């Protein structure tokens, strides 16, 4: 290389740079810079016109100063002047300055654009490239406006030099990213796609980035690129290492282009054309094979380039997720990297395997590497590699290895880096819950978690263990015993005190028989921690104490003593004081019966998505929780806190409000308690919607209850005052609509109600037609839709009454219409209720029906092959995922009628799947806002016995059960 090329001899610049380098201190440097800035400023302002060379030199100095980290507020004009110099180096420095220090001054932009326009039109390739580089570097909206229409022309023109084409392609890409609305490919599309065939490898390399980005946005228009990309890739992959000359990098042919081609293919599903697909699979196999060949060079660049292609190919294989052989091969090759001496490869193999673990085809293959991954977690010296190992363990975890993985993660937690502890804690908590078969293991795990990493155990984690213990009576005794033991530790984490307090308050009686954990010992143990705890924990413990008074009358005087002492009833914290006062009072005035009712055991918690999983998702950002994880979540979610029908006794609910970790004061409580003692209410069971509400709704609920209690203490059923109970035939009416959407819902002598409904995804719209069959007006006509129990949280409906509410009159013989918009938030079993009230000839008519909204309305049919069907069938093999009924045929067993009904159900009826042609199998996905629930159905008629066997399998137990119930009534 000639010496001249090293610089163009701006000696003044070199001297200045040396000066700066010789500065001993920051102050000296700033002084030198300020001196230079003053000098440049005076030169620019001076009377003497500067020659091009000086201008270039000073602009270059300014640039240097800017790159040192100092602000530059002048010199832009001089730089712009350089752009129109006919001397290349001056132009070049001008462009560099503009690229680095973009100024949005509109006056300048106009001048800059003008200079660029001239250079683009110059037909001098070097100048054109400079101008294109500048546009690509700045990429502003103004530039897009000025050049977006010009550049595609340059890109595809036959006489454009290759180097200019390359710059033009990437320049256009940059403009497209800034202002996609201004870059209109339209007529150029096919010529741009055909750049993939260009003879010049550099042109292909540059153009493919543009094509990839455009394909992502307009896959349909660019889909011809798939076959071109495949043949290009195939030519590269099969070429000998020297064929591509300078595009071969350390014996690897065109690694950058190969990676970009594989990346482009990831914008599309597998090619439909068999020949193209065959060729592609061949390419992928060749890449996998080549990665196994002995290296052609010892240089790390050789193996890096080769493996870069390998990883990109694996990414494509995972993207397709349809070639089991390739997936398993990929997994095996990555497995070899797990113990490679290159840390980089170990890191990448762990990372890539995480995605492979989520494919059903390679999940098992990934699992075989468990020991290696565990040892990586223990021995890797680099925390980023350990993090990858932890991620992979999480991804490969399933029922078969959960205990081992959770144990390893727990032991790793003891020494884990602080930066990843919280995430690890969440992961352990999720896995423990998801794969808990035996709940004592689950409880042990979470308590260990609190013991080992208490500070990192967020509220979600300890709330969850309590929810689960409350909902599972088989683990309550064990939990009580275990927390009792854990609390023995002299220094135990506050989270442990919270869990211990809560659980002993509920279930301390289960271990009270053992003299070593007698009521008083339990109390003293808890109370010994009291003074070390924060206010929220103390508040929780006070609730535990009042529960103890109920559970163990013998502790009453001791606890009252504690509550009575000044540090409690005069505590400066209002919440603590209030609790102490109220509990003391409650324990002294309420009769044992009232106390027992008020402080009854907590009712089960309503089922919902694991709050921990939600937290992990939030922490890692959307998309971080892989598809399979959501899938798993669907499959396993709610298994622990099974969805039994729940009726909460009123006071348990009230108590649950109290003891929920919401520590704002609950003023209405006091009034309620006094109300209780005054009225000595007879405590009929009152049904309550046990939905998860925020605090304000809790308050509201309390207030509402108070109102209800004071107005009608003996006969209130929440949310449906004055409504009659559903008609006895309402279930039968509902069943008529399971497999159809339109028809007459109800009819008596006065009224006919017709229904028309349509559903899409998790949304539905229902039209109700109320017909007055008489010749007399209905007065005060009103309708109301209510959701019993938990349903409120599952179906959201908004009522849209199209008849004016101001005219509650239905004329004789007339019909009024009502529209209901329905959104299914999560799966549900009970149908919403529709209540109709009106006066007919002075008599009040009050009818309650079940609205024909059943879970199957939100089915999306799913077509699948026989193989797929049985594979999925097998995957849903847990006992609770299946619901089965054997029942007698109610109607004639006509195959056509059965088919019609099954189609009406909303599922896809799968032909040629079941080996027995008499049987019917169906598949569908229930769409709810919260999640999708895949369902499979098999109906086996036995004509001889006039019986059916119906089997439902779905990822959610409540769904299988409900569908089975509904369907059993249909045939």
């Amino acid at each position, binding site marked *: *290389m*000639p010496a*001249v*090329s*090293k*610089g*163009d*001899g701006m*000696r*003044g610049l*070199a001297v200045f740079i040396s000066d700066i380098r010789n500065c001993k201190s920051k102050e000296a440097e700033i002084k030198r810079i300020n001196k230079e800035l003053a000098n440049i400023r005076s030169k620019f302002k001076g009377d003497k016109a500067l020659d091009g*060379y000086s201008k270039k030199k000073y602009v270059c100095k300014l640039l*240097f100063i800017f*790159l040192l*980290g100092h602000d530059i507020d002048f010199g832009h004009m001089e730089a712009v002047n350089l752009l129109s110099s*006919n*001397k*290349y*180096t001056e132009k070049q*420095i001008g462009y*560099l300055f503009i690229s680095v220090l973009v100024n949005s001054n509109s006056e300048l932009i106009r001048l800059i654009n003008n200079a660029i326009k001239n250079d683009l039109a110059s037909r001098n390739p070097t100048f054109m490239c400079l101008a294109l*580089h500048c546009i*690509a*570097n700045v*990429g502003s909206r103004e530039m897009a406006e000025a050049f977006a229409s010009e550049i595609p022309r340059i890109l595809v023109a036959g006489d454009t030099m290759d*180097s200019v084409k*390359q*710059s033009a392609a*990437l*320049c256009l*890409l*940059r403009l497209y*990213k800034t202002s996609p609305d201004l870059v209109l490919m339209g007529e150029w599309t096919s010529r741009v796609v055909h750049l993939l065939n260009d003879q010049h*490898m*550099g042109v292909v390399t*540059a153009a493919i*980035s543009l094509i990839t980005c455009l394909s*992502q946005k307009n896959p349909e228009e660019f889909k011809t690129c798939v076959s071109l990309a495949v043949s290009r890739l195939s030519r590269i992959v099969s070429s000998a290492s020297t064929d591509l000359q*300078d*595009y071969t*990098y350390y014996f690897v042919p065109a*690694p*950058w282009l190969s*990676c970009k081609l594989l*990346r482009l293919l990831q*914008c*599309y599903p597998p090619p439909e054309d068999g020949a193209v697909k065959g060729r592609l699979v061949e390419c992928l196999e060749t890449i996998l094979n080549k990665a196994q060949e002995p290296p052609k060079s010892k240089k790390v*660049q050789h193996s*890096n*380039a080769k493996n*870069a292609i390998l*990883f990109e190919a694996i990414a494509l294989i995972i*993207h397709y997720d349809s070639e089991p052989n390739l997936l398993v091969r990929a997994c095996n090759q990555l497995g070899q990297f797990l113990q490679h001496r290159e*840390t*980089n490869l170990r890191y990448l193999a762990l990372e890539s395997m995480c995605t492979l673990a989520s494919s059903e085809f390679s999940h098992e293959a990934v699992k075989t590497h468990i020991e290696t991954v565990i040892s990586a977690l223990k021995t890797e*010296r*680099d925390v980023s*590699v350990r*993090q990858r190992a932890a991620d992979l363990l999480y991804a490969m975890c399933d029922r078969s290895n959960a205990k081992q993985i959770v144990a390893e993660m727990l032991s790793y937690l003891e020494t884990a880096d602080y930066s990843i502890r919280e995430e690890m804690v969440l992961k352990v908590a999720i896995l423990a819950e998801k794969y808990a078969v035996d709940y004592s293991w689950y409880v042990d795990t979470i308590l260990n978690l609190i013991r080992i990493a208490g500070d990192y155990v967020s509220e979600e984690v300890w709330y969850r263990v309590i929810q689960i213990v409350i909902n599972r009576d088989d683990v309550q005794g064990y939990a009580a015993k275990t927390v009792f033991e854990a609390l023995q530790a002299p220094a135990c984490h506050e989270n442990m005190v919270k869990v211990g307090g809560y659980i002993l308050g509920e279930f301390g009686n289960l271990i009270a028989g053992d003299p070593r954990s007698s009521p008083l010992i339990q109390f003293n143990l808890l109370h010994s921690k009291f003074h070390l705890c924060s206010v929220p924990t103390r508040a929780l413990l006070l609730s535990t104490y009042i529960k103890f008074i109920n559970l163990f009358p013998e502790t009453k005087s001791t606890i009252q003593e504690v509550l009575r002492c000044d540090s409690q009833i005069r505590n400066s914290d209002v919440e603590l004081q209030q609790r102490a006062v109220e509990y003391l009072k409650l324990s002294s005035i309420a009769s044992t019966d009232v106390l027992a009712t008020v402080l009854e055991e907590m009712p089960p918690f309503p089922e919902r998505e694991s709050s921990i999983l939600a937290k992990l998702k939030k922490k890692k*950002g959307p998309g971080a929780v892989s598809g399979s994880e959501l899938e798993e979540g669907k499959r396993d979610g709610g298994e622990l806190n099974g969805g039994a029908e729940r009726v909460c006794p009123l006071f348990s609910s009230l108590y649950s409000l109290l003891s929920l970790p919401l520590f704002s004061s609950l003023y209405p409580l006091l009034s309620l308690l006094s109300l209780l003692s005054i009225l000595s209410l007879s405590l009929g069971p009152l049904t309550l919607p046990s939905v998860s509400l925020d605090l304000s709704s809790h308050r509201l609920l309390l207030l509402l209850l108070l109102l209800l209690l004071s107005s009608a203490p003996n006969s209130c059923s929440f949310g449906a005052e004055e409504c009659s109970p559903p008609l006895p035939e309402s279930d039968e009416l509902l069943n008529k609509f399971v497999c159809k959407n339109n028809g007459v819902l109800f009819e008596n002598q006065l009224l006919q109600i017709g229904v028309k409904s349509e559903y899409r995804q998790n949304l539905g719209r229902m039209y109700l037609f109320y017909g007055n069959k008489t010749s007399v007006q209905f007065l005060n006509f009103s309708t109301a839709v209510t959701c019993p129990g938990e349903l409120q949280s599952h179906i959201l409906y908004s009522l849209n009454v199209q008849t004016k509410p101001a005219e509650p009159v239905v004329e004789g013989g007339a019909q009024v219409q009502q529209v209901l918009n329905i959104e299914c938030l999560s799966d549900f079993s009970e149908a919403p209720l529709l209540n109709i009230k009106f006066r007919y000839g002075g008599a009040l008519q009050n009818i309650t029906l079940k609205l024909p909204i059943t879970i199957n309305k939100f089915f999306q049919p799913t077509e699948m092959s026989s193989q797929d069907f049985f594979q999925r069938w097998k995957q849903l093999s847990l006992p609770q995922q299946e619901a089965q009924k054997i029942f007698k045929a109610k109607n004639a067993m006509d195959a056509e009628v059965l088919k019609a009904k099954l189609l009406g159900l909303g599922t896809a009826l799968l032909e040629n799947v079941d080996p027995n042609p008499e049987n019917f199998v169906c598949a569908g996905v229930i769409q709810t806002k919260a999640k999708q629930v895949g369902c499979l159905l098999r109906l086996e008629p036995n004509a001889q016995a006039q019986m059916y066997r119906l089997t439902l399998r779905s990822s959610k137990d409540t769904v299988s059960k409900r569908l089975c119930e509904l369907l059993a009534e249909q045939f």
Partner: protein
Amino acid sequence: IICCPPPLQMQFMLLFSRQGKLRLQKWYVPLSDKEKKKITRELVQTVLARKPKMCSFLEWRDLKIVYKRYASLYFCCAIEDQDNELITLEIIHRYVELLDKYFGSVCELDIIFNFEKAYFILDEFLLGGEAQETSKKNVLKAIEQADLLQEVRLGGGDLHGI
């Protein structure tokens, strides 16, 4: 439904010395000067704190950092999470090769004193964060041609500067 991977792009490239002095910065996404300075400070610190045998990739914010040290200089690229780390590592290497070939066994001082050349070479190789020309020969040819152009136009008369 096939979901496309998002478009991936190199976010920026930084060259800095073992002492933490920034020698070259190239930003491929629009950021304010303040943000650039903050990122640079944070990243230089993070990378310098790493031990020699550690892997060349690290997660940083929601990006991935790929870095490699050549003598006294750290070359550091920020790419998106799904992007290819190894090919980025080789982008760095190819750039080093280009500098090496152009300056003849490049050292930090060459980049300090001829920073504008370092930028020009980078622009010929990577444009908008994407590989424009991966052939070493072609990149150097382009730069040589430009150098030649200056000689012809300037006739050598201006070479001596001040």
